[in-house]
């Protein structure tokens, strides 16, 4: 089962901001049950996409060498989202230190605000992992690898040095 709730990054400004989009299609399985005859994008999946946007922004600060784990999220929703809409996830890095990071996220559909969220991420070091996790870098791998490459492809080029 795939667990990537972003379709594409459209901007990644290292240590500052990430913007990604997610297109909602009626073909997605969860719309069959949530809810029959009235498809609503589950709020938890919207937040998962927003957290993935923020998590990749945070992960990029250490070149994806540190495990970044969602630790706490506080969110407020303004309205539901439905098939046919394109959600824009924006994550802004508020705080970052060796223990973790705090991100402010918004979700829009076109100009309309869908949700706002404060998200805490923790950096999980090797010695903090439970014994059943044998891969010391278990977050940024697998199906996420493609997304990481795509995210890095939308980093704006650095401005050329200004001649004195």
């Amino acid at each position, binding site marked *: 089962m795939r667990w990537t709730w972003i379709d594409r990054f459209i901007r990644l400004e290292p240590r500052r901001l990430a913007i990604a989009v997610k297109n909602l299609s009626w073909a997605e399985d969860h719309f069959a049950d949530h809810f029959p005859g009235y498809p609503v994008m589950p709020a938890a999946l919207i937040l998962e996409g927003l957290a993935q946007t923020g998590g990749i922004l945070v992960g990029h600060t250490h070149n994806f060498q540190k495990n970044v784990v969602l630790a706490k999220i506080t969110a407020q929703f303004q309205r539901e989202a439905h098939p046919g809409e394109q959600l824009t996830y924006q994550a802004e890095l508020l705080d970052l230190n060796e223990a973790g990071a*705090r991100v402010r996220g918004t979700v829009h559909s076109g100009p309309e605000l869908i949700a706002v969220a404060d998200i805490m991420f*923790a950096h999980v070091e090797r010695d903090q992992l439970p014994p059943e996790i044998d891969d010391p870098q278990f977050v940024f791998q697998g199906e996420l690898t493609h997304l990481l490459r795509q995210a890095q492809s939308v980093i704006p080029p650095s401005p050329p040095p200004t001649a004195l």
Partner: protein
Amino acid sequence: MTYDDIFTKVRSILVEALNVEEEEVTPTSRLKADLNAESIDFLDIVFRLEKQFGLRIPREDLFPESIFQGDPRFVSNGQVTAEGLAELQRRMPYADLTSFRENPRVERIEDLFTVDLIVRYLQSRLATPAQ
């Protein structure tokens, strides 16, 4: 900045970070037992304090999480030893150990993380010119 000024700002931060009511936050409130803080909330609180007070708070400075690391000099049969109490006082100079000394069970260390501890820590930091 007075104790009360700092307390008022700390209370607002705790209301936001822990989703509690203002009335629940008093100087003696224990972050875990009374305000239901979890480990990750401590990081959230530190981030918010840094922003509010314009400080850099080093890891383990305000909320030391791994004080004894199972060192038998500091803990014996679940009790913090005299040497452990001295270490605790050194690592947490802003904590009031009076009640803890009467029953120094190691699991009670988290009760030392109170609102008063945060305010006293900030008072001290704000009184010291930035390095």
